[in-house]
């Protein structure tokens, strides 16, 4: 496992473009969260302090940081599709296999890399959230601090799932740009499924349940948008803002199943293909 990870890290980190994108995908969310937690004074005209609204308090901060940090996954998604696309265009995939790497090891080395970077990203988000949260909250009871930290797990699963999808599209289409375009097509496809289900099952709620099973939708369900929760927190008396934002175990299971399917399909695809 270490050997396979080592292989892929060498391929990625010696490529300038990949290196820059990887750094951006880690540093950018880190800074955005960090900066937004500061009290910003606009030339003495007015000040913005997001912390005032209580969004940096435990437990809601776990939800907020993971939700916004997840947007930056697109940078690493580009790295994932290009790490497959480059292997095809440089024909190094073929050379790797001739040199004695098995097709299974090839896919695994990509998958381990995905897990590795998701883990690093999750760890960074965990640390920054903990620091900002501790700064803003007066709570020092461990139980309350880590209440809601299941969003960190959801964040990790979400990243691994999304990058596995990118890996599969990369393997399927061999070209990075096509793979990224396919992500958009997948998104449209899920809406078509929603519409189809709506026609057949005759109900938005049922159709949504079908759509919840689709890859992109299931990943976005892991961490629901936190805006409504912020408003809900600010207006505790209004009940029409109440919604289900929790991370459910079945949401995690659906994404994990998709992850397994994508990795398996990538392997099958490579195994069947003549290079």
């Amino acid at each position: 496992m270490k050997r396979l990870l080592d292989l892929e890290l060498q391929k990625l980190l010696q490529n300038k473009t990949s290196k820059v994108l990887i750094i951006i995908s880690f540093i950018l969310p880190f800074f955005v969260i960090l900066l937004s937690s500061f009290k910003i004074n606009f030339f003495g005209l007015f000040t913005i302090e997001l912390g005032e609204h209580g969004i940096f308090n435990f437990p809601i901060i776990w939800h907020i940081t993971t939700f916004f940090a997840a947007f930056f996954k697109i940078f690493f998604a580009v790295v994932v599709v290009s790490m497959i696309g480059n292997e095809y265009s440089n024909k190094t995939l073929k050379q790797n296999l001739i040199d004695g790497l098995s097709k299974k090891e090839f896919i695994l080395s990509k998958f381990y890399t995905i897990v590795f970077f998701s883990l690093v990203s999750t760890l960074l988000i965990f640390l920054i959230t903990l620091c900002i949260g501790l700064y803003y909250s007066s709570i020092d009871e461990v139980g309350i601090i880590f209440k809601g930290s299941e969003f960190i797990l959801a964040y990790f699963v979400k990243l691994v799932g999304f990058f596995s999808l990118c890996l599969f599209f990369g393997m399927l289409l061999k070209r990075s740009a096509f793979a990224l375009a396919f992500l958009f097509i997948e998104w449209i496809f899920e809406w078509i499924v929603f519409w189809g289900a709506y026609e057949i099952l005759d109900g938005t709620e049922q159709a949504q349940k079908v759509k919840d099973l689709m890859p992109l939708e299931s990943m976005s369900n892991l961490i629901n948008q936190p805006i409504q929760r912020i408003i809900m927190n600010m207006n505790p008396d209004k009940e029409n803002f109440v919604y289900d934002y929790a991370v459910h175990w079945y949401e995690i299971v659906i994404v994990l199943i998709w992850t397994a399917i994508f990795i398996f399909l990538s392997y099958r695809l490579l195994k069947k293909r003549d290079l």
Partner: protein
Amino acid sequence: MEPILSIDNLTKKFGYLTAVNNLSFTINKGNVYGILGSNGSRKSNTLGIVLNVVNKTSGDFKWFDGSVSTHDALKKVGAIIERPNFYPYMSAYNNLKLVCKIKGVPFEKIDEKLELVGLHERKDSNFSTFSLGMKQRLAIASALLNDPEILILDEPTNGLDPQGIHQIRTLIKKIASNGTTILLASHLLDEVEKVCSHVVVLRKGVKLYSGRVDEMVSSHGFFELRSSNSSELISLLENHSAFGKINEFDGLVTAFLDAPLDASEFNKMLFDKGIVLSHLVKRKPSLEEQFLQLTDHN
């Protein structure tokens, strides 16, 4: 003899097209083998199958004694097929480092092999800055990293200038002299003739011949004859049991032997029968002629 690669009734179909048809041959340790065939004779497809990048349709092949999986066996094999494939943004040294990691070879080998192919002073240059000849030499260095039991080269001199071709051939001979088994796929006859001891001839995925280069056509050679009385000469040759095919072109008679016949004995016999020759040459066909004979008549 110790077999390194045994191919048994290997077949590859692309849809309706049969690319490799029921191919069987064995590569033994210590020999230099050539796979000879014109463009499209499916040399690369055949190599692709045994190198784990093309899936076979039926048949079987095994590396060494067949006890290890193909990808593990490939760690003891060095191969370059078609074009040198490396990561363009990495230096020569780092590209080889990656290969070392795949094959499980210590990094100390890198400098040794770069020295061997004469790329040591360029080891920190990016692969993308290399000329084709340098890329090909780097590919050979990469294939040699694990001190392979067999080195597989597919058209190693393709697209190179005369100096490049010469460098590569010298390198191959040097490697062969160290006792490494070599399998060289080529459409260049003189390349195979100069380097190989054994040859497999392919045509459209079908094996036409496999065996020693010098035994490729079980021919007894042929005579080139010229005489002022060529019609009598031809009728005499036609009635002689030792001769098969007889051609005449521009007064030059070419008579192929079906049985061994000594030149001086033949000359004496003709003289006794009153035919005087102005030209007599006994020759064995060149590899090129043998190759064309093999590929044309089948």
